[in-house]
């Protein structure tokens, strides 16, 4: 998004370190900027790529205080008995209405984005989740079973490989139950194989239509995958609705949680997809054939370019240059999909440095950046415990259910296979603007999050209002306030608190107003 502004407005910081932190974290803070400068920004970036070397104990300690986070990343065989063990009323909530396990995963994701020290890793988790999108808030009828699988999807497909290798991630995604359920492998048949997965594999996950594949290619993928279904008892997959309880079932015979090939649904013969070809005559040959196909697609130059385009949109600008796409695509292909190598190339690309302030924050990013700037943690003190639930956890935080849901940006929550859009034009609309603007006020009042400690974040160092305004703006924007903007804020303070506002009696209120107004400046919406 290109911008111009008049003299006196507050433009984005020209500082390269601030720019790097704007793009590779969920929001820079004054403290982070200081720390990174001390370490050296290249060293910081390199350390971020080695995310396991960074301690995340603060987040882990917070999560460990709440029972509900024991659900996170657990599979169906953990979740189901918990649901069954609850009272009758709770079962309905657990199984039928609210995707409890998924909602908690959404909340967990927001907390990680806000407070994890592994910021580049968290950004890439979100990136890959959108690339291979499986929504964590399912369609009631179509994807009613997804909530049982998205937790392991998030862990074993996305989180374990977000800074690893693309092909490995793709291989795991194709046969994960979440994908099999979401893109209709579960309901495919031998005679009329379901084309949904094959289409998205080519169009979205790998080569894109630029590669020029045909309907025949799609059909062959559908035929090759037709035997794939999640091997779980019928009680989990009562077709035509949400999972229902089978009273005769006991949990002593839980099957292994894996994907199996069903012989009676599997097609055999020769499969041709673009330049790839394989003959499959036995069940044992199916998975190797799938792996070979995915390897072929992952290595295809168009796949590299497709991912380069998305990385460009994420970290550089809405319309990345062809040069960027070609160069990063070539790095992707030559490194065999090594994500760290590709990210280094993005970081060092001249287009990156030139793109200061050209990205609009998406609503969820704006939301998290405010939480980071105010250094607040979720407020779970007022949550109602669900009726009928015996376990000691509170549900559900308005962070996901209300705030981000209204903004249309629940993390990992895009309903369609193409992932959340990542260009400004998709997010610029009045509804979204009003929600964002009101959200700034909500943060200051506390509610979904703890009330911020403004006096600690923005101590009053001078009785001069102008000085106070400048300090708050510098802390939040990492740059100097423009003269016209300063005047607008000063006029507002005067209007609300008089020409000589009293810091003795209303310092909190004055600070609160200034902070709100700094968030309202156009520059805050950029990253």
């Amino acid at each position, binding site marked *: 998004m290109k911008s111009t502004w008049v003299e006196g407005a507050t433009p984005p910081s020209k500082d390269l370190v601030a720019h790097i932190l704007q793009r590779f974290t969920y929001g820079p803070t004054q403290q982070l900027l200081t720390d990174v400068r001390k370490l050296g920004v290249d060293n910081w970036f390199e350390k971020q790529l080695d995310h396991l070397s960074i301690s995340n104990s603060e987040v882990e300690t917070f999560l460990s205080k709440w029972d509900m986070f024991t659900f996170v990343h657990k599979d169906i065989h953990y979740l189901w008995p918990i649901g069954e063990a609850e009272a009758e009323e709770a079962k309905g909530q657990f199984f039928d209405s609210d995707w409890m396990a998924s909602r908690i995963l959404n909340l967990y994701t927001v907390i990680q984005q806000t407070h994890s020290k592994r910021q580049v890793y968290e950004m890439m988790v979100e990136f890959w989740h959108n690339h291979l999108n499986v929504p964590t808030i399912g369609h009631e*009828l179509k994807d009613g079973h997804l909530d049982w699988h998205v937790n392991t999807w998030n862990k074993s497909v996305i989180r374990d490989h977000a800074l690893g290798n693309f092909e490995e991630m793709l291989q795991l995604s194709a046969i994960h139950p979440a994908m099999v359920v979401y893109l209709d492998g579960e309901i495919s*048949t031998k005679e009329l194989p379901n084309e949904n997965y094959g289409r998205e594999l080519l169009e979205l996950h790998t080569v894109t239509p630029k590669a020029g594949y045909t309907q025949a290619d799609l059909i062959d993928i559908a035929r090759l995958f037709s035997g794939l279904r999640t091997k779980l008892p019928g009680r989990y997959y009562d077709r035509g609705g949400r999972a229902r309880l089978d009273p005769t079932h006991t949990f002593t015979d839980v099957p292994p949680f894996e994907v199996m090939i069903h012989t009676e649904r599997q097609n055999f013969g020769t499969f041709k997809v673009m330049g790839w070809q394989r003959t499959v005559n036995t069940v044992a040959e199916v998975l190797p054939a799938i792996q070979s196909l995915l390897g072929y697609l992952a290595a295809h130059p168009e796949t590299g370019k497709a991912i380069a385009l998305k990385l460009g949109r994420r970290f550089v600008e809405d319309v990345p240059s062809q040069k960027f796409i070609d160069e990063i695509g070539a790095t992707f292909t030559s490194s065999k999909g090594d994500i760290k190598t590709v990210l280094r190339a993005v970081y060092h690309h001249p287009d990156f440095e030139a793109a200061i302030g050209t990205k609009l924050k998406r609503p969820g990013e704006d939301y998290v950046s405010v939480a980071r700037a105010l250094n607040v943690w979720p407020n779970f003190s007022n949550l109602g415990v669900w009726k009928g639930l015996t376990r000691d956890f509170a549900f559900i935080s308005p962070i996901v259910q209300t705030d981000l849901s209204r903004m249309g940006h629940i993390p990992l929550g895009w309903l369609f296979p193409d992932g959340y859009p990542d260009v400004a034009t998709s997010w610029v609309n009045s509804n979204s603007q009003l929600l964002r603007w009101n959200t700034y006020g909500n943060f200051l009042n506390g509610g979904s999050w703890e009330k911020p400690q403004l006096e600690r974040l923005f101590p009053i160092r001078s009785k001069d209002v102008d000085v106070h305004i400048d300090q708050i703006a510098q802390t939040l924007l990492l740059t100097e306030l423009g003269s016209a903007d300063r005047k607008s804020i000063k006029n507002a303070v005067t209007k609300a608190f008089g020409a000589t506002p009293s810091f003795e009696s209303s310092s909190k209120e004055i600070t609160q107003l200034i902070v*709100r107004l700094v968030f309202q400046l156009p520059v805050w919406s950029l990253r």
Partner: protein
Amino acid sequence: MNSEEAIKLCPEGREGFNRRQFLQGMTLFGGMTILSATGVRYSFAASTTEVPDVVITLILRGGFDGLSAVVPTDENLMRKVRSQVYIPNSALLPIDRDFGFHPSLKRLLPLWEAKELAIINTVGAPTHSRSHFEEIADVAYAAYGEKEKRSGWMARFLDVTGSGSVVQSVGIGSTTKQLLGGKSSPININGLDNFKLEGVYGFRPEDIAGFIDETHGRWTNTWAGQAKSTIKALDEIARASAQKSTVIYPNTGTGRRLKDVAALLKSGIGVRAVDVEFEGDWDMHGNMGSIENGWLSGYLGDLAGSIAAFREDLGVLWARVTVVTVTEFGRRVSGNESNGTEHGWGSSMFVAGGGVNGGKIHGRFPGLDEKQLKDGDLVVTADYRSLLTEILTRRAGVSVKGAAEIFPNFRPEVLSVMKHLSETPLPANFPKGVMDGLGSVYYDKDALPTPAPTAVASAAATPSPSPTQVRPTSSKKVITCVKGGRTIKVTGKNPKCPTGYTIKP
């Protein structure tokens, strides 16, 4: 031209042509009115000014299956192709010899019988990619063959003829605004009651609004431009929010959204185009449910119930509303074995409103025989842009030239689904406030294309030209036609003068 000639040319005995409209006409085309001997004002030209329709698109995202909604009554064939999702004739609501409504569309029957609802069969986009993401974007841009896709057709429509109101185009429900996005900054609402700004201690909402307006005024970018519109729209939307309704809508997202649309229209704030997203995904690859229950039946019931409630709620305003459903593609003729259908091509569109040639199924349904299909899909026999062109030209005051700007590289065919504005006089009790908000458009029925006789007589399937065939034609000719003292220019490959006009050599 003298005054007597002018009086002869004036529309005679037309109901609803009142003084007020006349004066609006004068404002727009100043100097064109005269005073007759009796003191009654008359217009010179055959053309008039009219209060235009509000154009409402209801987006059915995911791929709407026309064959499940408007079902062919060839029961044997349907059973053969749709073994799992087939609906027996006994369950259908008869609307025509060849088609019946799905029973869940029951609430649309009164509209059908009142001829306020029309169906267009096997209509769709010229492209056949079966891809959601390409098609839904292309359908919204409607600029096939253009390299740069910067704006949706609805935005271009309002660029051509808008009311000038900040709320002239409104999106309801979605956060991505392909259809409305363009030069202007459309207003997008998710619940009228949510459309407000909250203050902070000591600083009122209007103060915050003023601050935002002032600081965003220092910037030029998409975000700041939108912010200025958003601030301007706050008061207008508050007026709509205050509208009350006693009509009971379905308790669904779509029901609530259409209720909001009705409130917008009733408030007279100048809304000219609305893009409403049906809440839900029509991409039914499997588990469609039964005839009475489940996914398909529930959605069709919601669709019918929401439209019916909307019509009831609007009352007399319905005379100046066109609602049209839009989807990215229809679905494969053969059902799959998962009680669902795959992506296809041709679908059906529903058009409802006060200016519809309703109670009738339009379009050229090619039949379901294998050889009549393309890769198993119903062929698109009418381009959806032809229907949209007709809505815009006959109901919304867009000229032929304007339509060509809105839909570039496209030659529309006349479908005669819509009545001309001049054929549907404004009811006498149409509220003045709403009329003022809508403003008026220049309207000349004779300047619009009329159906070629062959198009009506032909029953055979003529597939719409694919985008590769449709190019910006350099072979276009311009002719000049004359009638009375009026001269018009007609552009086309084979341009013909409209009825009553003669070609000027």
